[in-house]
């Protein structure tokens, strides 16, 4: 279980390879990469700055991963989140999860991403032609995280 908060870019393929290095019981690696888009909420985005709460960020992501590991049988997970100034097309975040079977790896990966969006202390500020603005929290992100509370949610296929 690795959590890294960094200014530098990351290599998603290398991180996925690391998740299966040295062990032959990994059958599935699910991953997600978030990327800066050049438009958001109808405005052209020239750049964005990511602020975070050092210490709490690492702690909250660690506990999200632990929660995922308690819900699904996964072997390992890595979360990398960038901070500082980012441009459109830049990678922002990587979540990668290894397990025996795809259903659990998929569910855990999506769960970590949904919880990270609503519980990890990061804030985006966008530069647009209309000026700089803090990105508003999205109701849809709360809904995405909340569906994991439902009794039947995220059962995956187990396969």
């Amino acid at each position, binding site marked *: 279980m690795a959590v890294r908060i960094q200014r530098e870019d990351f290599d998603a393929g290398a991180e996925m390879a690391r998740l299966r290095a040295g062990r032959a019981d990994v059958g599935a690696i699910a991953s997600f990469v978030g990327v800066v888009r050049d438009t958001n909420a109808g405005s052209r985005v020239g750049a964005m700055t990511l*602020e975070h709460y050092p210490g709490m960020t690492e702690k*909250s992501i660690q506990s999200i991963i632990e929660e995922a590991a308690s819900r699904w049988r996964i072997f390992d997970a890595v979360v990398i989140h960038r901070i500082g100034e980012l441009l459109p097309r830049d990678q*922002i*975040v990587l979540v990668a999860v290894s397990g025996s079977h795809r259903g659990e790896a998929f569910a855990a990966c999506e769960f970590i991403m949904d919880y990270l969006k609503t519980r990890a202390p990061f*804030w*985006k500020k966008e530069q647009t032609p209309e000026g700089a603005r*803090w990105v508003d*929290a999205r109701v849809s992100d709360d809904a995405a995280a909340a569906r994991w509370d439902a009794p039947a949610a995220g059962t995956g296929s187990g396969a």
Partner: protein
Amino acid sequence: MRVRLLYFASIREQLGCAAESLELPAGITTVGALLEHLMLRGGAWREALAQTRVLRVAINQDMAEPGRTLSGGDEVAFFPPVTGG
């Protein structure tokens, strides 16, 4: 008792303050009381901290509700809803 206060993102910008160390007057023992105490500073303080619908609080890096009791040495952070990822 003394607590450390942190402000992030739009809250930090509105207050023009990122961090401070504060000696709490006797009787200020909860997050809610601390907020009211800070709002007495008026101006941006009253305005920014009155946004209870969007204001989030963490004590020692765990999310906390306004009713939570404070202890000496606590790190108390105020910030808007998170938007990372």
